[in-house]
Protein backbone atom coordinates (compact mmCIF):
# COMPACT_ATOMS: atom_id res chain seq x y z
CA UNK A 1 0.00 0.00 0.00
CA UNK A 2 2.74 2.35 0.99
CA UNK A 3 4.87 1.45 -2.05
CA UNK A 4 1.88 2.01 -4.31
CA UNK A 5 1.32 5.39 -2.74
CA UNK A 6 4.94 6.33 -3.25
CA UNK A 7 4.82 5.21 -6.89
CA UNK A 8 1.56 7.08 -7.43
CA UNK A 9 2.95 10.21 -5.87
CA UNK A 10 6.18 9.92 -7.82
CA UNK A 11 4.27 9.39 -11.05
CA UNK A 12 2.10 12.40 -10.38
CA UNK A 13 5.10 14.55 -9.65
CA UNK A 14 6.84 13.36 -12.82
CA UNK A 15 3.72 14.06 -14.85
CA UNK A 16 3.50 17.49 -13.32
CA UNK A 17 7.09 18.27 -14.19
CA UNK A 18 6.56 17.00 -17.75
CA UNK A 19 3.44 19.07 -18.19
CA UNK A 20 5.28 22.07 -16.89
CA UNK A 21 8.11 21.50 -19.31
CA UNK A 22 5.67 21.28 -22.21
CA UNK A 23 3.90 24.38 -21.14
CA UNK A 24 7.12 26.31 -20.90
CA UNK A 25 7.59 29.67 -22.13
CA UNK A 26 7.24 30.09 -25.64
CA UNK A 27 7.11 33.54 -24.11
CA UNK A 28 10.77 33.72 -23.23
CA UNK A 29 11.28 36.68 -25.46
CA UNK A 30 14.23 39.01 -25.80
CA UNK A 31 12.94 42.55 -25.32
CA UNK A 32 16.31 44.28 -25.22
CA UNK A 33 15.57 46.06 -28.51
CA UNK A 34 12.33 47.51 -27.12
CA UNK A 35 12.41 51.31 -27.22
CA UNK A 36 12.04 52.22 -23.54
CA UNK A 37 11.59 55.87 -24.41
CA UNK A 38 8.30 55.07 -26.12
CA UNK A 39 6.99 53.34 -23.01
CA UNK A 40 8.26 56.06 -20.67
CA UNK A 41 6.54 58.65 -22.83
CA UNK A 42 3.33 56.64 -22.81
CA UNK A 43 3.54 56.19 -19.05
CA UNK A 44 3.76 59.95 -18.62
CA UNK A 45 0.97 60.50 -21.13
CA UNK A 46 -1.33 58.04 -19.36
CA UNK A 47 -0.83 60.01 -16.13
CA UNK A 48 -1.40 63.23 -18.00
CA UNK A 49 -4.62 61.87 -19.51
CA UNK A 50 -5.87 60.99 -16.02
CA UNK A 51 -5.34 64.60 -15.04
CA UNK A 52 -6.96 65.88 -18.25
CA UNK A 53 -10.09 63.87 -17.55
CA UNK A 54 -10.19 64.92 -13.90
CA UNK A 55 -9.93 68.58 -14.86
CA UNK A 56 -12.14 68.09 -17.95
CA UNK A 57 -9.55 69.49 -20.28
CA UNK A 58 -10.99 68.13 -23.54
CA UNK A 59 -8.29 69.46 -25.82
CA UNK A 60 -5.42 67.99 -23.80
CA UNK A 61 -7.34 64.73 -23.32
CA UNK A 62 -7.83 64.37 -27.08
CA UNK A 63 -4.15 64.99 -27.69
CA UNK A 64 -3.03 62.56 -25.00
CA UNK A 65 -5.44 59.84 -26.13
CA UNK A 66 -4.00 60.25 -29.62
CA UNK A 67 -0.44 59.95 -28.32
CA UNK A 68 -1.33 56.80 -26.40
CA UNK A 69 -3.02 55.27 -29.43
CA UNK A 70 0.08 55.96 -31.52
CA UNK A 71 2.34 54.44 -28.87
CA UNK A 72 0.23 51.33 -28.61
CA UNK A 73 0.14 51.03 -32.38
CA UNK A 74 3.93 51.08 -32.32
CA UNK A 75 3.90 48.39 -29.58
CA UNK A 76 1.48 46.28 -31.61
CA UNK A 77 3.87 46.42 -34.56
CA UNK A 78 6.85 45.62 -32.37
CA UNK A 79 5.24 42.54 -30.81
CA UNK A 80 3.86 41.40 -34.17
CA UNK A 81 7.36 41.46 -35.60
CA UNK A 82 8.69 39.57 -32.57
CA UNK A 83 6.20 36.80 -33.14
CA UNK A 84 4.81 34.21 -30.76
CA UNK A 85 3.48 36.81 -28.31
CA UNK A 86 -0.11 37.05 -29.48
CA UNK A 87 -1.31 38.10 -26.05
CA UNK A 88 0.85 41.22 -26.17
CA UNK A 89 -0.36 42.01 -29.69
CA UNK A 90 -3.98 41.63 -28.60
CA UNK A 91 -3.49 43.76 -25.52
CA UNK A 92 -1.89 46.51 -27.60
CA UNK A 93 -4.78 46.36 -30.07
CA UNK A 94 -7.31 46.48 -27.23
CA UNK A 95 -5.52 49.49 -25.81
CA UNK A 96 -5.62 51.28 -29.16
CA UNK A 97 -9.36 50.73 -29.42
CA UNK A 98 -9.91 52.00 -25.91
CA UNK A 99 -7.80 55.08 -26.60
CA UNK A 100 -9.94 55.81 -29.65
CA UNK A 101 -13.07 55.39 -27.54
CA UNK A 102 -11.72 57.80 -24.95
CA UNK A 103 -11.16 60.39 -27.64
CA UNK A 104 -14.69 59.84 -28.96
CA UNK A 105 -16.23 60.15 -25.50
CA UNK A 106 -14.33 63.34 -24.84
CA UNK A 107 -15.37 64.72 -28.23
CA UNK A 108 -19.00 64.24 -27.20
CA UNK A 109 -18.27 65.71 -23.75
CA UNK A 110 -19.14 62.40 -22.10
CA UNK A 111 -16.41 62.44 -19.46
CA UNK A 112 -17.99 59.69 -17.40
CA UNK A 113 -17.71 57.31 -20.33
CA UNK A 114 -14.19 58.57 -20.96
CA UNK A 115 -13.25 57.81 -17.34
CA UNK A 116 -14.71 54.32 -17.57
CA UNK A 117 -12.69 53.72 -20.73
CA UNK A 118 -9.66 55.16 -19.03
CA UNK A 119 -9.97 52.60 -16.22
CA UNK A 120 -10.17 49.86 -18.86
CA UNK A 121 -7.06 51.30 -20.50
CA UNK A 122 -4.90 51.21 -17.38
CA UNK A 123 -6.05 47.67 -16.64
CA UNK A 124 -4.94 46.68 -20.13
CA UNK A 125 -1.59 48.35 -19.50
CA UNK A 126 -1.11 46.42 -16.28
CA UNK A 127 -2.09 43.09 -17.82
CA UNK A 128 0.69 43.54 -20.35
CA UNK A 129 3.19 44.92 -17.84
CA UNK A 130 2.59 41.97 -15.50
CA UNK A 131 4.09 39.72 -18.15
CA UNK A 132 6.43 41.84 -20.23
CA UNK A 133 7.63 44.78 -18.17
CA UNK A 134 11.06 44.23 -16.61
CA UNK A 135 10.96 44.05 -12.81
CA UNK A 136 11.57 47.14 -10.73
CA UNK A 137 14.79 46.71 -8.81
Amino acid at each position, binding site marked *: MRIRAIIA*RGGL*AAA*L*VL*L*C*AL*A*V*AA*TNIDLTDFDDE*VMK*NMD*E*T*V*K*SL*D*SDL*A*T*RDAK*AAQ*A*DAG*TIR*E*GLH*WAEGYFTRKGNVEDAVHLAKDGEEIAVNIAKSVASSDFDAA*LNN*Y*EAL*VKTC*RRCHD*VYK*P*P*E*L
Partner: protein
Amino acid sequence: MSHSFKTRRQFLAHSAYGLGALSLTGALSTSPVARAAATAAIDDPLAPKPPHFAPKAKSVIWLHMAGAPSSLDLFDYKPELVRLHGQPLPDSFRKNLKTATDGGVGALYATQRTWKQYGQTGAWVSDWLPNLATQVDSIAFLKGCKTDGSTHVISSLKLHTSGLVPGRPALGSWVTYGLGTANPDLPAFVVLPTGTGSAGGGRGTTIWSSGFLPATYAGTALRPGDSPMLYIDRPAVESAAEQRGTLDLLKRLNEHESEVLHPGDSELEARARSYELAYRMQKTAPEAVDLAKETAATKELYGIVDTATYATREYATALLRARRLVERNVRFVHVISGAPDNSIDSWDAHHEIEKNHSVMCRQVDKPIAGLLADLKSRGLLDTTLVVWTAEFGRTPYGQTGDGRDHNPWGYTSWIAGGGIKPGTYGATDEIGLRAVSGIVDTYDLQATILHQLGLDHRKLTFLYQGRSERATTVYGEVVKEIIT
Protein backbone atom coordinates in the same frame (compact mmCIF):
# COMPACT_ATOMS: atom_id res chain seq x y z
CA MET B 1 4.93 60.26 -31.69
CA SER B 2 4.78 63.78 -30.43
CA HIS B 3 6.93 64.85 -27.53
CA SER B 4 5.79 68.44 -27.63
CA PHE B 5 3.36 68.05 -24.73
CA LYS B 6 6.25 67.71 -22.37
CA THR B 7 7.36 71.25 -23.02
CA ARG B 8 3.81 72.53 -22.66
CA ARG B 9 3.27 70.55 -19.48
CA GLN B 10 6.55 71.73 -18.07
CA PHE B 11 5.63 75.32 -18.83
CA LEU B 12 2.29 74.95 -17.07
CA ALA B 13 3.89 73.14 -14.20
CA HIS B 14 6.50 75.80 -13.69
CA SER B 15 3.88 78.51 -13.97
CA ALA B 16 1.76 76.89 -11.30
CA TYR B 17 4.77 76.33 -9.10
CA GLY B 18 5.89 79.88 -9.67
CA LEU B 19 2.61 81.14 -8.38
CA GLY B 20 3.27 79.13 -5.31
CA ALA B 21 -0.44 78.64 -4.93
CA LEU B 22 -1.13 74.97 -4.96
CA SER B 23 -4.22 75.40 -2.88
CA LEU B 24 -5.41 78.22 -5.10
CA THR B 25 -4.92 76.18 -8.25
CA GLY B 26 -6.97 73.49 -6.56
CA ALA B 27 -9.66 76.04 -5.81
CA LEU B 28 -9.76 77.06 -9.44
CA SER B 29 -10.15 73.47 -10.56
CA THR B 30 -13.41 72.50 -12.17
CA SER B 31 -13.63 69.48 -9.88
CA PRO B 32 -16.11 70.28 -7.08
CA VAL B 33 -14.28 68.04 -4.65
CA ALA B 34 -10.91 69.55 -5.37
CA ARG B 35 -12.41 73.01 -5.18
CA ALA B 36 -14.14 72.39 -1.86
CA ALA B 37 -11.08 70.76 -0.38
CA ALA B 38 -8.80 73.51 -1.59
CA THR B 39 -11.14 76.23 -0.35
CA ALA B 40 -11.19 74.67 3.10
CA ALA B 41 -7.42 74.30 2.93
CA ILE B 42 -6.94 78.03 2.44
CA ASP B 43 -8.46 78.67 5.86
CA ASP B 44 -7.18 75.66 7.74
CA PRO B 45 -5.71 72.66 5.94
CA LEU B 46 -6.73 70.42 8.82
CA ALA B 47 -10.34 71.59 9.07
CA PRO B 48 -12.79 68.67 8.93
CA LYS B 49 -14.04 68.09 5.40
CA PRO B 50 -17.08 66.11 4.30
CA PRO B 51 -16.43 62.71 2.73
CA HIS B 52 -17.64 61.92 -0.79
CA PHE B 53 -20.22 59.50 0.59
CA ALA B 54 -21.26 57.98 3.91
CA PRO B 55 -18.21 56.26 5.44
CA LYS B 56 -18.14 52.86 7.09
CA ALA B 57 -14.95 53.59 8.99
CA LYS B 58 -13.58 56.60 10.82
CA SER B 59 -10.02 55.50 11.52
CA VAL B 60 -7.32 53.19 10.25
CA ILE B 61 -4.73 51.22 12.19
CA TRP B 62 -2.19 50.18 9.58
CA LEU B 63 -0.01 47.30 10.76
CA HIS B 64 3.07 47.36 8.59
CA MET B 65 5.02 44.12 8.88
CA ALA B 66 8.30 45.65 7.76
CA GLY B 67 10.64 43.21 6.10
CA ALA B 68 7.86 40.98 4.71
CA PRO B 69 6.60 37.92 6.56
CA SER B 70 5.99 34.64 4.81
CA SER B 71 2.29 34.13 4.07
CA LEU B 72 3.19 30.51 3.35
CA ASP B 73 4.09 30.01 6.99
CA LEU B 74 1.27 32.04 8.52
CA PHE B 75 -1.98 32.07 6.52
CA ASP B 76 -1.59 30.44 3.10
CA TYR B 77 -1.52 26.70 3.68
CA LYS B 78 -0.26 24.82 0.60
CA PRO B 79 -0.30 21.01 0.88
CA GLU B 80 1.08 20.78 -2.65
CA LEU B 81 4.15 22.72 -1.57
CA VAL B 82 4.61 20.33 1.32
CA ARG B 83 4.37 17.44 -1.11
CA LEU B 84 6.90 18.95 -3.53
CA HIS B 85 9.38 19.97 -0.81
CA GLY B 86 12.97 19.72 -1.97
CA GLN B 87 12.14 19.54 -5.67
CA PRO B 88 13.13 22.21 -8.18
CA LEU B 89 10.54 24.81 -9.06
CA PRO B 90 8.49 23.23 -11.87
CA ASP B 91 8.94 24.97 -15.21
CA SER B 92 5.26 25.82 -15.46
CA PHE B 93 5.69 28.08 -12.47
CA ARG B 94 8.83 29.64 -13.92
CA LYS B 95 6.92 30.93 -16.94
CA ASN B 96 7.30 34.70 -17.07
CA LEU B 97 8.82 34.67 -13.58
CA LYS B 98 10.84 37.84 -13.33
CA THR B 99 13.19 37.14 -10.43
CA ALA B 100 15.24 40.15 -9.54
CA THR B 101 17.12 39.57 -6.33
CA ASP B 102 20.41 37.75 -6.39
CA GLY B 103 19.34 34.84 -4.26
CA GLY B 104 18.49 32.62 -7.20
CA VAL B 105 15.67 30.13 -7.29
CA GLY B 106 16.31 27.33 -4.85
CA ALA B 107 14.41 24.11 -4.30
CA LEU B 108 10.84 24.30 -3.08
CA TYR B 109 10.74 24.75 0.66
CA ALA B 110 7.76 23.48 2.61
CA THR B 111 6.40 25.11 5.72
CA GLN B 112 7.56 23.46 8.93
CA ARG B 113 4.45 24.60 10.77
CA THR B 114 1.33 22.74 11.78
CA TRP B 115 -1.94 24.15 10.53
CA LYS B 116 -5.58 24.29 11.54
CA GLN B 117 -8.75 25.93 10.34
CA TYR B 118 -10.39 28.30 12.78
CA GLY B 119 -13.72 29.95 13.42
CA GLN B 120 -16.90 30.08 11.40
CA THR B 121 -14.96 31.22 8.37
CA GLY B 122 -12.61 28.25 8.51
CA ALA B 123 -9.54 30.36 7.92
CA TRP B 124 -6.22 28.54 7.89
CA VAL B 125 -3.69 29.80 10.42
CA SER B 126 -0.38 28.22 11.39
CA ASP B 127 0.71 27.46 14.93
CA TRP B 128 2.89 30.56 14.88
CA LEU B 129 -0.18 32.74 15.47
CA PRO B 130 -2.33 30.94 18.05
CA ASN B 131 -3.84 34.11 19.48
CA LEU B 132 -4.64 35.74 16.17
CA ALA B 133 -6.29 32.47 15.16
CA THR B 134 -9.03 33.18 17.72
CA GLN B 135 -9.94 36.39 15.88
CA VAL B 136 -10.28 35.10 12.31
CA ASP B 137 -14.03 35.64 12.24
CA SER B 138 -13.37 39.38 12.26
CA ILE B 139 -10.88 39.22 9.40
CA ALA B 140 -11.04 39.35 5.61
CA PHE B 141 -7.96 37.56 4.31
CA LEU B 142 -6.81 38.87 0.93
CA LYS B 143 -4.86 35.90 -0.37
CA GLY B 144 -4.36 37.16 -3.89
CA CYS B 145 -2.22 40.21 -3.13
CA LYS B 146 0.46 41.29 -5.56
CA THR B 147 2.74 44.26 -6.06
CA ASP B 148 5.64 45.55 -8.15
CA GLY B 149 9.30 45.59 -7.29
CA SER B 150 11.30 43.12 -5.33
CA THR B 151 13.38 45.30 -3.06
CA HIS B 152 12.12 46.51 0.30
CA VAL B 153 12.48 50.20 -0.33
CA ILE B 154 10.74 50.28 -3.72
CA SER B 155 7.90 48.00 -2.73
CA SER B 156 7.48 49.71 0.62
CA LEU B 157 7.20 53.06 -1.15
CA LYS B 158 4.60 51.58 -3.47
CA LEU B 159 2.65 50.08 -0.60
CA HIS B 160 2.46 53.37 1.25
CA THR B 161 2.64 56.05 -1.45
CA SER B 162 1.75 54.24 -4.71
CA GLY B 163 5.05 55.50 -6.12
CA LEU B 164 8.26 53.64 -6.83
CA VAL B 165 10.48 56.57 -5.93
CA PRO B 166 10.23 58.97 -2.98
CA GLY B 167 8.15 62.11 -3.28
CA ARG B 168 4.56 60.97 -3.23
CA PRO B 169 2.24 61.34 -0.20
CA ALA B 170 1.59 58.42 2.11
CA LEU B 171 -1.94 57.05 2.32
CA GLY B 172 -2.31 58.55 5.79
CA SER B 173 -1.49 61.96 4.33
CA TRP B 174 -4.14 61.56 1.64
CA VAL B 175 -6.69 60.56 4.28
CA THR B 176 -5.83 63.62 6.35
CA TYR B 177 -5.97 65.83 3.27
CA GLY B 178 -9.33 64.36 2.28
CA LEU B 179 -11.05 64.40 5.64
CA GLY B 180 -9.10 66.84 7.80
CA THR B 181 -8.70 66.17 11.46
CA ALA B 182 -11.37 64.92 13.82
CA ASN B 183 -9.37 66.04 16.84
CA PRO B 184 -7.52 69.36 16.51
CA ASP B 185 -5.53 68.63 19.67
CA LEU B 186 -3.76 65.59 18.25
CA PRO B 187 -2.04 64.88 14.94
CA ALA B 188 -4.45 63.26 12.47
CA PHE B 189 -1.76 60.92 11.15
CA VAL B 190 0.45 59.26 13.76
CA VAL B 191 3.32 56.84 13.15
CA LEU B 192 4.42 54.37 15.81
CA PRO B 193 7.72 52.71 14.86
CA THR B 194 8.79 49.83 17.08
CA GLY B 195 11.80 47.65 17.57
CA THR B 196 15.47 47.80 16.81
CA GLY B 197 17.42 47.51 13.60
CA SER B 198 16.83 49.17 10.28
CA ALA B 199 13.69 47.12 9.55
CA GLY B 200 14.00 46.00 5.97
CA GLY B 201 10.71 47.55 4.96
CA GLY B 202 12.19 50.85 3.99
CA ARG B 203 11.45 52.36 7.32
CA GLY B 204 11.92 56.10 7.25
CA THR B 205 10.08 59.29 6.73
CA THR B 206 9.54 58.68 3.02
CA ILE B 207 6.79 56.19 3.79
CA TRP B 208 4.89 58.61 6.01
CA SER B 209 5.82 61.77 4.13
CA SER B 210 3.23 64.17 2.79
CA GLY B 211 5.11 64.19 -0.52
CA PHE B 212 3.72 66.92 -2.76
CA LEU B 213 0.79 67.55 -0.43
CA PRO B 214 1.29 70.40 2.04
CA ALA B 215 3.70 69.39 4.79
CA THR B 216 1.00 69.71 7.45
CA TYR B 217 -0.40 66.37 6.24
CA ALA B 218 2.79 64.42 7.03
CA GLY B 219 2.74 61.67 9.63
CA THR B 220 3.88 62.52 13.16
CA ALA B 221 6.20 59.84 14.51
CA LEU B 222 6.12 59.03 18.21
CA ARG B 223 9.08 57.35 19.85
CA PRO B 224 8.72 53.87 21.26
CA GLY B 225 9.20 53.38 24.96
CA ASP B 226 8.14 55.38 27.98
CA SER B 227 8.89 58.78 26.49
CA PRO B 228 7.12 58.94 23.11
CA MET B 229 7.51 62.70 22.78
CA LEU B 230 10.63 64.53 23.81
CA TYR B 231 10.41 67.96 25.42
CA ILE B 232 6.63 67.84 25.55
CA ASP B 233 6.52 69.57 28.93
CA ARG B 234 6.85 73.32 29.34
CA PRO B 235 10.30 74.08 30.77
CA ALA B 236 10.17 74.66 34.53
CA VAL B 237 11.81 78.07 34.17
CA GLU B 238 9.03 79.36 31.92
CA SER B 239 5.57 80.37 33.15
CA ALA B 240 2.42 79.54 31.21
CA ALA B 241 1.93 83.21 30.38
CA GLU B 242 5.49 83.54 29.13
CA GLN B 243 5.11 80.51 26.93
CA ARG B 244 1.85 81.81 25.46
CA GLY B 245 3.42 85.21 24.84
CA THR B 246 6.40 83.64 23.07
CA LEU B 247 4.14 81.56 20.88
CA ASP B 248 1.95 84.56 20.02
CA LEU B 249 4.99 86.54 18.92
CA LEU B 250 6.29 83.59 16.93
CA LYS B 251 2.90 83.21 15.29
CA ARG B 252 2.84 86.87 14.23
CA LEU B 253 6.35 86.64 12.82
CA ASN B 254 5.56 83.45 10.92
CA GLU B 255 2.36 84.93 9.55
CA HIS B 256 4.31 87.92 8.28
CA GLU B 257 6.88 85.63 6.67
CA SER B 258 4.16 83.48 5.19
CA GLU B 259 2.00 86.30 3.84
CA VAL B 260 4.64 88.75 2.70
CA LEU B 261 7.92 87.01 2.09
CA HIS B 262 7.07 83.39 1.29
CA PRO B 263 3.42 83.15 0.25
CA GLY B 264 2.28 79.60 -0.34
CA ASP B 265 5.25 78.03 1.46
CA SER B 266 3.45 75.02 2.89
CA GLU B 267 6.41 73.95 5.00
CA LEU B 268 6.48 77.33 6.72
CA GLU B 269 2.72 77.20 7.28
CA ALA B 270 3.03 73.66 8.61
CA ARG B 271 5.84 74.71 10.93
CA ALA B 272 3.77 77.61 12.25
CA ARG B 273 0.80 75.34 12.85
CA SER B 274 3.01 72.74 14.49
CA TYR B 275 3.89 75.19 17.29
CA GLU B 276 0.23 75.63 18.10
CA LEU B 277 -0.46 71.91 17.82
CA ALA B 278 2.51 71.17 20.06
CA TYR B 279 1.16 73.68 22.58
CA ARG B 280 -2.22 71.96 22.65
CA MET B 281 -0.54 68.56 22.69
CA GLN B 282 1.22 69.44 25.96
CA LYS B 283 -2.09 68.61 27.57
CA THR B 284 -3.62 66.06 25.22
CA ALA B 285 -0.76 63.94 23.94
CA PRO B 286 0.70 62.61 27.20
CA GLU B 287 -2.74 61.49 28.24
CA ALA B 288 -3.43 59.92 24.86
CA VAL B 289 -0.41 57.65 25.04
CA ASP B 290 -0.24 57.14 28.79
CA LEU B 291 -1.24 53.60 29.67
CA ALA B 292 -1.37 54.18 33.42
CA LYS B 293 -5.14 54.22 33.49
CA GLU B 294 -5.49 51.03 31.47
CA THR B 295 -6.54 48.06 33.55
CA ALA B 296 -4.30 45.11 34.23
CA ALA B 297 -6.74 42.97 32.27
CA THR B 298 -6.39 45.18 29.22
CA LYS B 299 -2.62 45.16 29.46
CA GLU B 300 -2.66 41.41 29.79
CA LEU B 301 -4.95 41.17 26.76
CA TYR B 302 -2.30 42.91 24.64
CA GLY B 303 0.60 41.02 26.17
CA ILE B 304 2.09 43.87 28.16
CA VAL B 305 3.78 42.54 31.26
CA ASP B 306 6.28 44.02 33.63
CA THR B 307 9.28 42.13 32.32
CA ALA B 308 11.23 44.46 30.09
CA THR B 309 12.60 41.66 27.99
CA TYR B 310 9.23 40.14 27.28
CA ALA B 311 8.94 39.88 23.52
CA THR B 312 5.57 41.50 23.09
CA ARG B 313 6.00 44.46 25.41
CA GLU B 314 7.03 47.22 23.03
CA TYR B 315 4.81 46.20 20.15
CA ALA B 316 1.89 45.66 22.51
CA THR B 317 2.43 49.10 23.99
CA ALA B 318 2.30 50.59 20.50
CA LEU B 319 -0.95 48.80 19.69
CA LEU B 320 -2.59 49.83 22.94
CA ARG B 321 -1.53 53.39 22.17
CA ALA B 322 -3.01 52.96 18.71
CA ARG B 323 -6.34 52.00 20.25
CA ARG B 324 -6.22 55.01 22.55
CA LEU B 325 -5.43 57.26 19.60
CA VAL B 326 -8.34 56.05 17.45
CA GLU B 327 -10.52 56.34 20.54
CA ARG B 328 -9.55 60.02 20.43
CA ASN B 329 -10.45 60.26 16.75
CA VAL B 330 -6.98 60.14 15.24
CA ARG B 331 -7.61 59.25 11.60
CA PHE B 332 -4.64 57.11 10.70
CA VAL B 333 -2.20 55.24 12.95
CA HIS B 334 0.69 53.57 11.17
CA VAL B 335 2.43 50.97 13.34
CA ILE B 336 5.73 49.58 12.04
CA SER B 337 6.99 46.27 13.37
CA GLY B 338 10.72 46.16 13.90
CA ALA B 339 12.65 43.37 15.53
CA PRO B 340 12.31 43.19 19.32
CA ASP B 341 16.04 42.57 19.80
CA ASN B 342 19.28 42.31 17.89
CA SER B 343 18.98 38.58 17.24
CA ILE B 344 17.23 39.37 13.96
CA ASP B 345 16.71 42.47 11.82
CA SER B 346 13.05 42.31 10.83
CA TRP B 347 10.68 39.87 9.11
CA ASP B 348 13.22 39.67 6.28
CA ALA B 349 14.02 35.95 6.60
CA HIS B 350 16.42 35.16 3.79
CA HIS B 351 17.87 32.60 6.14
CA GLU B 352 16.81 30.87 9.35
CA ILE B 353 13.15 31.55 8.79
CA GLU B 354 12.23 29.28 11.69
CA LYS B 355 14.22 31.38 14.12
CA ASN B 356 13.23 34.68 12.53
CA HIS B 357 9.49 34.12 12.34
CA SER B 358 9.37 32.52 15.77
CA VAL B 359 10.66 35.77 17.22
CA MET B 360 8.57 38.08 15.05
CA CYS B 361 5.35 36.11 15.45
CA ARG B 362 5.78 35.95 19.21
CA GLN B 363 6.13 39.72 19.15
CA VAL B 364 2.98 40.51 17.18
CA ASP B 365 0.58 37.61 17.74
CA LYS B 366 -0.87 38.38 21.14
CA PRO B 367 -0.86 42.19 20.75
CA ILE B 368 -2.73 42.09 17.44
CA ALA B 369 -5.25 39.55 18.73
CA GLY B 370 -5.64 41.72 21.83
CA LEU B 371 -6.13 44.83 19.72
CA LEU B 372 -8.91 43.21 17.68
CA ALA B 373 -10.63 41.85 20.77
CA ASP B 374 -10.30 45.16 22.59
CA LEU B 375 -11.61 47.23 19.69
CA LYS B 376 -14.52 44.84 19.35
CA SER B 377 -15.43 44.90 23.04
CA ARG B 378 -15.43 48.71 23.01
CA GLY B 379 -17.54 48.93 19.87
CA LEU B 380 -14.64 50.53 18.00
CA LEU B 381 -13.98 47.76 15.49
CA ASP B 382 -17.12 48.70 13.56
CA THR B 383 -15.58 52.06 12.72
CA THR B 384 -11.89 51.18 12.70
CA LEU B 385 -10.10 49.47 9.85
CA VAL B 386 -7.24 47.29 11.03
CA VAL B 387 -4.96 46.46 8.11
CA TRP B 388 -2.16 43.89 8.22
CA THR B 389 0.18 44.15 5.28
CA ALA B 390 3.77 44.19 4.12
CA GLU B 391 5.76 45.31 1.11
CA PHE B 392 5.50 41.79 -0.35
CA GLY B 393 5.50 38.15 0.74
CA ARG B 394 8.10 35.41 0.53
CA THR B 395 8.76 32.73 -2.05
CA PRO B 396 7.77 29.06 -1.90
CA TYR B 397 11.26 28.22 -3.09
CA GLY B 398 14.02 28.34 -0.58
CA GLN B 399 17.07 30.49 -0.23
CA THR B 400 20.31 29.66 1.59
CA GLY B 401 18.81 26.35 2.62
CA ASP B 402 16.53 27.61 5.38
CA GLY B 403 15.10 30.95 4.26
CA ARG B 404 12.81 32.44 1.65
CA ASP B 405 13.34 35.21 -0.90
CA HIS B 406 11.06 38.19 -1.67
CA ASN B 407 7.79 37.43 -3.41
CA PRO B 408 5.87 40.33 -4.98
CA TRP B 409 3.67 38.01 -7.11
CA GLY B 410 1.42 36.46 -4.50
CA TYR B 411 0.97 36.97 -0.77
CA THR B 412 -1.61 37.58 1.94
CA SER B 413 -2.74 40.82 3.53
CA TRP B 414 -5.79 41.15 5.73
CA ILE B 415 -8.31 43.74 6.85
CA ALA B 416 -10.67 43.70 9.81
CA GLY B 417 -13.46 46.00 10.98
CA GLY B 418 -14.77 49.16 9.38
CA GLY B 419 -17.45 47.55 7.23
CA ILE B 420 -15.28 44.72 5.93
CA LYS B 421 -16.83 41.31 5.43
CA PRO B 422 -14.84 38.52 7.16
CA GLY B 423 -13.75 35.52 5.12
CA THR B 424 -11.17 34.61 2.54
CA TYR B 425 -10.91 36.42 -0.77
CA GLY B 426 -8.59 35.41 -3.58
CA ALA B 427 -5.92 32.76 -3.78
CA THR B 428 -2.41 31.98 -4.91
CA ASP B 429 -1.49 29.03 -7.12
CA GLU B 430 -0.88 25.50 -5.81
CA ILE B 431 2.51 26.36 -4.34
CA GLY B 432 1.78 29.94 -3.27
CA LEU B 433 4.02 31.63 -5.81
CA ARG B 434 1.56 33.84 -7.67
CA ALA B 435 -1.86 35.34 -7.07
CA VAL B 436 -4.30 33.63 -9.41
CA SER B 437 -7.71 34.83 -8.26
CA GLY B 438 -9.14 37.77 -6.37
CA ILE B 439 -6.00 39.70 -7.24
CA VAL B 440 -5.48 42.78 -5.08
CA ASP B 441 -2.69 45.17 -5.95
CA THR B 442 -1.55 47.76 -3.43
CA TYR B 443 -3.47 50.35 -5.46
CA ASP B 444 -6.65 48.33 -4.92
CA LEU B 445 -5.94 47.99 -1.19
CA GLN B 446 -5.55 51.76 -0.92
CA ALA B 447 -8.68 52.41 -3.01
CA THR B 448 -10.66 50.08 -0.74
CA ILE B 449 -9.45 51.73 2.45
CA LEU B 450 -10.28 55.18 1.09
CA HIS B 451 -13.70 53.89 0.06
CA GLN B 452 -14.44 52.64 3.57
CA LEU B 453 -13.52 56.08 4.87
CA GLY B 454 -16.03 57.64 2.49
CA LEU B 455 -13.50 58.81 -0.09
CA ASP B 456 -13.62 58.02 -3.80
CA HIS B 457 -10.03 57.42 -4.90
CA ARG B 458 -10.89 58.78 -8.35
CA LYS B 459 -12.17 62.05 -6.93
CA LEU B 460 -9.68 62.71 -4.17
CA THR B 461 -7.31 64.83 -6.21
CA PHE B 462 -4.62 67.42 -5.71
CA LEU B 463 -3.30 69.70 -8.39
CA TYR B 464 0.47 69.50 -8.40
CA GLN B 465 2.65 71.09 -11.03
CA GLY B 466 -0.31 71.40 -13.37
CA ARG B 467 -1.39 67.81 -13.05
CA SER B 468 -4.31 66.38 -11.11
CA GLU B 469 -2.76 63.73 -8.83
CA ARG B 470 -4.50 61.08 -6.76
CA ALA B 471 -3.50 58.63 -4.05
CA THR B 472 -3.56 55.53 -6.23
CA THR B 473 -1.89 57.22 -9.23
CA VAL B 474 -3.77 56.10 -12.35
CA TYR B 475 -4.73 52.71 -10.92
CA GLY B 476 -6.88 51.31 -8.14
CA GLU B 477 -10.14 49.44 -7.92
CA VAL B 478 -12.27 49.02 -4.80
CA VAL B 479 -12.49 45.36 -3.75
CA LYS B 480 -16.27 45.34 -3.52
CA GLU B 481 -16.44 41.64 -2.67
CA ILE B 482 -15.12 42.24 0.85
CA ILE B 483 -17.39 45.15 1.73
CA THR B 484 -20.51 44.59 3.82
